């Protein structure tokens, strides 16, 4: 069963990760490169001279962007392993798993892994002021775990207590608050930061929707093989 889980997850994760990487290169990377011009000091916001909002940005860089594609595929394969594992668990308890139901799983995954932490720790453009990275990572991991548990409770919990627990898990990290910087020192124009966060969340949603559909589709195929063998034997 482990090899079937891994196979489904690797297919789904590589496919969704590749598409996510291409979407990021087209829609997110130019905003990131634009921000880096301000991070490095090549451009100065509110300096002596007004700065054009249109800048010549580098195009495709084989090593840098190639690494980005590989790492995006890796990250979404990691997410797919968690997602397919949870799908198999739900399936063993009677939930239907296929490409269509996978869409809901993907959207729930997006809420858990991307939207929930981003609601307070917005996707950061390079150069932004931020608190200690270790503290933010702890908050990020705890928020993702709480939101994932909430998504499971909403999907499979029964009755008011489960939904109330889900609401508490979703709200608590944001009421407690994330580690914030003492002062704002970011040199990047707010317009670029806002566009970056919006683009990162939009691409993340598309990537997770695809990840859910692919994971449901491949796991349904793999586990159907299993059932078929069982019937033959």
């Amino acid at each position: 069963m482990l090899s079937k889980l891994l196979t489904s997850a690797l297919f789904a994760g590589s496919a969704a990760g590749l598409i996510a990487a291409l979407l990021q290169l087209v829609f997110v990377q130019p905003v990131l490169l634009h921000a880096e011009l301000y991070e490095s000091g090549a451009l100065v916001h509110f300096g002596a001279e007004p700065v054009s909002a249109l800048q010549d940005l580098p195009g495709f860089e084989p090593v840098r962007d190639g690494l980005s594609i590989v790492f995006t595929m890796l990250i979404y394969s990691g997410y797919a392993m968690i997602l397919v594992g949870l799908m198999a668990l739900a399936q063993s308890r009677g939930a239907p798993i296929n490409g269509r139901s996978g869409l809901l799983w993907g959207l729930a995954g997006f809420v858990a892994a991307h939207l929930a932490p981003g609601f307070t720790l917005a996707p950061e453009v390079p150069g932004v002021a931020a608190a200690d990275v270790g503290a933010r990572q702890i908050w990020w991991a705890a928020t993702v775990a709480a939101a994932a548990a909430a998504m499971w409770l909403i999907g499979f919990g029964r009755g008011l207590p489960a939904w109330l627990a889900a609401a508490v898990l979703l709200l608590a990290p944001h009421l407690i608050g994330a580690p914030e910087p003492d002062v704002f020192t970011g040199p990047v124009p707010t317009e670029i930061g806002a566009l970056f966060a919006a683009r990162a969340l939009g691409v993340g949603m598309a990537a997770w929707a695809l990840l859910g559909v692919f994971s449901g589709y491949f796991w349904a195929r793999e586990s159907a093989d299993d059932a078929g063998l069982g019937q033959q034997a």
Partner: protein
Amino acid sequence: MTVATAVRSETSSAREGLAAIFMVAAIGIGIVALTGHVQASALHDAAHDVRHATGFPCH
């Protein structure tokens, strides 16, 4: 196959299934942690753009 052995083999295959699910999820968490969160500078530099674009705390 008696009812007792059928039940026993069902519970043991369910336990194997749970172990496999636990394993695959643990590997997945390990991959996301390694690619998205470990601060070793080679990993950080290689994954820099992706960490930002995926909304991870980066630096």
